């Protein structure tokens, strides 16, 4: 992999212009395979073009704030992901607070009024569950809650919250997380792979919503959601959600991806896995899929790439690692152990 060459190829202006005017499927495919390598300027170009709904769908985590200010309200209303980025004040300024599509910004009482005035179909339980989400959100923000309850609160509040609410919720729980981290400074850190568990599914389903918040909040969210404290064995357990790669039909914040890849490499590195184990190779494939997504591999810091290469020598190849890294890994792991898959 030649990173500068790749970056140049991806950010070719003429090609991007062509992609903007091509069918949405083509732009989608391009973003899914090279999105992480796009320059801010090019991201901005796509966001201000007719391809906005496609990019908002895939790369909403990368919507620049100033672009959001310039967008026409009708465009914003078409994409709920963008609506939820705005504050209530911003929506009010655009005089559309009565629009049903902005219900992520309604209070519980306002949502009751929506139900009263709009005669919704019986199957539409969105406003109903949103009421509970609002109430639960207010309670947690006012009264705080334990870290054990955080996944439950995230699961039920996040799908109905807007960016400032999510930020506030994550910050509230982050305080608890920090307290707990200080109290468990002497604990060992261990990693476990979570398959199809409820927590893993809740994390994966909440992930698209983290595109609405900053990358710092997204990383904090993952820490809070996936960390468990085992006080009996005095261990902090980081849970790596396996199966995430299949569920990713968008590009989450790259820093969040680094964290998850780092944990996966950590889990493999601590001897949780056996080299010839079929699970080990499955996890290797999973990490490779995550690294290929939006060409994250070319954006990752070299140190992290090397860590992954050491943990999963089977996935090392010229498309995901630089020539120098491959040579280094061949020396560290032994030539035969690199790229055996």
């Amino acid at each position, binding site marked *: 992999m030649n990173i500068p060459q790749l970056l140049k190829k991806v950010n070719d202006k003429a090609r991007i212009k062509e992609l903007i005017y091509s069918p949405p499927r083509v732009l989608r495919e391009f973003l899914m395979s090279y999105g992480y390598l796009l320059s801010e300027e090019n991201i901005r170009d796509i966001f201000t073009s007719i391809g906005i709904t496609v990019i908002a769908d895939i790369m909403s985590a990368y919507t620049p704030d100033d672009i959001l200010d310039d967008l026409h309200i009708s465009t914003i209303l078409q994409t709920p992901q963008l609506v939820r980025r705005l504050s209530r004040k911003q929506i009010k300024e655009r005089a559309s607070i009565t629009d049903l599509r902005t219900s992520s910004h309604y209070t519980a009482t306002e949502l009751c009024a929506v139900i*009263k005035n709009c005669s919704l179909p019986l199957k539409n339980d969105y406003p109903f569950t949103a009421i509970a989400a609002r109430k639960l959100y207010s309670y947690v923000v006012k009264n705080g809650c334990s870290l054990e309850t955080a996944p*439950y609160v995230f699961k039920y509040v996040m799908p109905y919250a807007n960016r400032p609410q999510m930020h506030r919720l994550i910050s509230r729980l982050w305080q608890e997380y920090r307290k707990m981290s200080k109290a468990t400074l002497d604990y060992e850190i261990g990693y476990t792979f979570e398959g199809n568990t409820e927590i893993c599914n809740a994390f994966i389903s909440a992930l698209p919503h983290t595109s609405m918040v900053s990358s710092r909040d997204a990383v904090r969210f993952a820490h809070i959601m996936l960390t468990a404290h085992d006080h009996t064995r005095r261990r902090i357990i980081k849970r790596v959600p396996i199966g995430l790669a299949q569920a990713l039909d968008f590009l989450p914040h790259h820093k969040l991806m680094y964290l998850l890849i780092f944990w996966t490499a950590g889990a493999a590195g601590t001897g949780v896995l056996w080299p010839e184990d079929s699970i080990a190779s499955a996890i290797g494939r999973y990490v490779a899929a995550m690294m290929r997504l939006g060409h994250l591999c070319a954006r990752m810091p070299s140190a992290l790439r090397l860590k992954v290469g050491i943990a999963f020598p089977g996935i090392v190849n010229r498309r995901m690692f630089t020539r120098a890294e491959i040579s280094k890994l061949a020396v560290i792991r032994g030539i035969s152990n690199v790229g055996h898959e």
Partner: protein
Amino acid sequence: MNISRLLKRANDEKSIKKMLCAATEAPLHEFLMSHGYLLTEENIRSIFTSVRVNIATEIMGAYMPDDVLDKIQNATLISAPQLLRRLSRKQLKERMIINDVRITSHRTATELCAIIKNCIPSLKNDYPVTAIAARKLYSYCIKNDCPLDVAPYMFKYVIPYANRAQIHRLISRFWQQYQKMNEEARQYDISYRLEHSTELCNTFLSLLPCISIVSPRDAVRFAHIMLTTYDCVSQRIIKRFPMGADRRLYFLPHHRLMYLLLSWAANIGMATSVLWPSSPTLKELSDCIAAMMRLGGLYARMPSALRLRMGMAFPGIVNCRLFTRAEVSKLKVIKGIDKVGW
């Protein structure tokens, strides 16, 4: 059908005692489902005060006397949510079970949030969350007038999480609106329509078990509010009969509610039999009606006038097991011999 003989047989104390002492619940279950409506208050009381209180609550929750409820032990109450929801918050406080997690139907939205905070429910358990929304929506509806069109939505989402007092208040609130609307639509024609597996029909049927915890008057009002629409353009009041009700009834709703539905069905049957006597829908409806009449031996409890109406609307279901000998003779004369019991 000989009503007095049937009543005597259903209320035979010895056989009831035998069923209560049987090794399994099956005989009592079967008996209640086939003769429940015919039981005397005394026998209902003895079943509810026996060890089989749970099965009786499940099937005949609507018929549990209030004084029996007062005497029931806390442990029994807590194991049967239907019974808990009959009590007021004050009664629960008196029984010192106000702090039990299982009485969520009596908690405020804030208290439910505290439960989530302190009890860490499993991620799949969305009951506390939906209960929060139900409480909030209930309070809003009680404080602010909601139009009748919203009633089915409110009922669908509020009733499964509400207690008896709340359901009563909610129904009464909408009943005021319903009465106002009826006054305005006095000169409208009333027509009846069959509802086949629509969202409204499914919602009504899924809420019916919850309606056993309120009084029969409230149950009837609930059905009126839920199943009535006003067509202001064609100046008509439309009463919708939920088809398939018989298949969803694994318990005995208030008999008065059943009478109401049966009388609506009779109106549909009378109109349809004139227009399309061989319609498969009519056959389906008459099967549904016969099943509803058989449920808990309702046919023997029904007023004779309603039974006669049913017989006239659905001559195909007339037989000596569902109708008295005198009624069968009368129906034969009215409908013509051939047309009875096809």
